[in-house]
């Protein structure tokens, strides 16, 4: 049996461990900003990644198409039933929208929390060692994507941008364990019931909405949307549906479990919501402390 570590190797290993610890400490300090070499690596690797990912999306898309084709008959039957109510709803929606514009004109209110510019983007990769729920998309600051913007699919909110380089952005999904990830949300009922989405229950796959006033009458099955009061997200992005209501640890406020409307696996196309109204740093932004530091300096 040869000697496990010769002297030289032992020294290399020790130096390696020291460098490793130093590097980890250095990069942990400031994870929400990428310096120039990091940005360059991200852009170059991201370019190569999108060359490989886009054909892969094409293939999975084909398979999905075949899959949906097999279910066409069933689906068609179901959709036909819904189509009848759809026409009536459509007419009503057009009427309400027109009315809304007219009323806004009367009170002279131009800005709207709901308004946002959508930026369409393709998901090119997901953090392979899934300790953190992160995906990388192929649009960056050159396309107007910036940190803290809301990211959604056609089904609903999925996360927010936490880092952006010129040609890629990193998105943290809402199903994260990170407790700094908050979304100002509201339950839609007869009145608007405001709360904060804080945390994710991994075992049941549900979001937890906290700080709902105990006087609010939250019921199972109600829909939850973003409230726009967090400062960054636009108002009205669908988040999910209330499945369970209980009180928090101290019994002062209510706590609701929310089944997310969007699915977090097999993401391919996402939309980034660039709010048209002024952005302020509120609860939606995870980098509040950093932003304050920037202001002072």
């Amino acid at each position, binding site marked *: 049996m040869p000697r496990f570590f010769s002297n030289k190797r032992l020294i290399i290993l020790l130096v390696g461990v020291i*460098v490793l610890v130093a590097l980890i400490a250095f*990069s942990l300090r400031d994870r929400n900003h990428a310096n120039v070499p*990091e940005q360059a*690596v991200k852009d170059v690797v991201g370019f190569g990644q999108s060359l*490989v990912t886009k054909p892969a999306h094409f293939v999975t898309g084909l398979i999905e198409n075949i899959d949906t084709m097999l279910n066409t008959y069933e689906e068609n039957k179901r959709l036909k039933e819904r189509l009848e109510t759809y026409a009536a709803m459509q007419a009503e929606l057009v009427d309400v929208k027109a009315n809304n514009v007219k009323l806004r004109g009367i009170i002279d209110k131009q800005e709207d929390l709901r308004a946002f510019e959508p930026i369409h983007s393709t998901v090119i*990769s*997901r953090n*392979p060692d899934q*300790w953190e729920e992160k995906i990388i998309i192929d649009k960056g600051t050159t396309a107007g994507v910036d940190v803290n913007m809301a990211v959604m699919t056609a089904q609903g909110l999925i996360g927010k941008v936490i*880092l952006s380089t010129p040609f890629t952005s990193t998105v943290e999904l809402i199903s994260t364990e990170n407790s700094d990830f908050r979304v100002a949300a509201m339950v839609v009922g007869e009145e608007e019931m405001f709360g904060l989405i804080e945390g994710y229950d991994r075992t049941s796959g549900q979001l937890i909405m906290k700080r709902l006033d105990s006087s609010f009458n939250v019921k199972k099955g109600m829909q939850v949307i973003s409230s726009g009061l967090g400062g960054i997200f636009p108002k009205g992005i669908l988040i999910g549906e209330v499945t369970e209501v209980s009180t928090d640890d101290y019994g002062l406020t209510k706590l609701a479990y929310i089944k997310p409307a969007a699915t977090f696996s097999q993401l391919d196309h996402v939309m980034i919501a660039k709010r048209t109204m002024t952005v302020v740093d509120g609860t939606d932004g995870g980098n509040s402390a950093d932003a304050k530091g920037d202001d002072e300096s």
Partner: protein
Amino acid sequence: MIRFIIPLIAVLLFFLEPIFSLFSPIDINDNLYITVPRFLIVYLIFIATYYNSKRAIIYGFVLGLLYDMYHIDIIGLYTFMYPLICYVAALVIRQIERHIVTVMVLSVVMIVLLELLSYFFASVIALTSIDFGEFFTNRLVPTMIANALFIVMFGYMFKQITEKRFFQKQAGF
């Protein structure tokens, strides 16, 4: 030609890993199972076994650094773990026969070691709060099964390619 194929496959596997992780987590009976694709390290172990262990460590270092910068945003985790795993694999393979089946088994064992190391680091840096039991059932076992499938499917091909390059190099190309 084959000279460039060896690093090319490594880069391709590096790009394939995040695509496969888009399918995870897998939902079976309302239980979420996380499978982590570890294709690159399997290939590096095959390089270390049949071709050149030093080369494997260098590839591991470079690709680990890219992995850290691109995906994790913490520099130093995979930059350290990939070369370490290659080194340990090279040490072990010196003691045993280089039969394809033993190398396949060794790759699975090394994936387990890598997962354990990665879990250790993730809990130290507080990226995760799951306990060991949950880690074992929801992450380690599915990852092992998925990667074992990958190894069985591509192990023979990896062996052919790396061995071919080794003999070529010995012949003096």
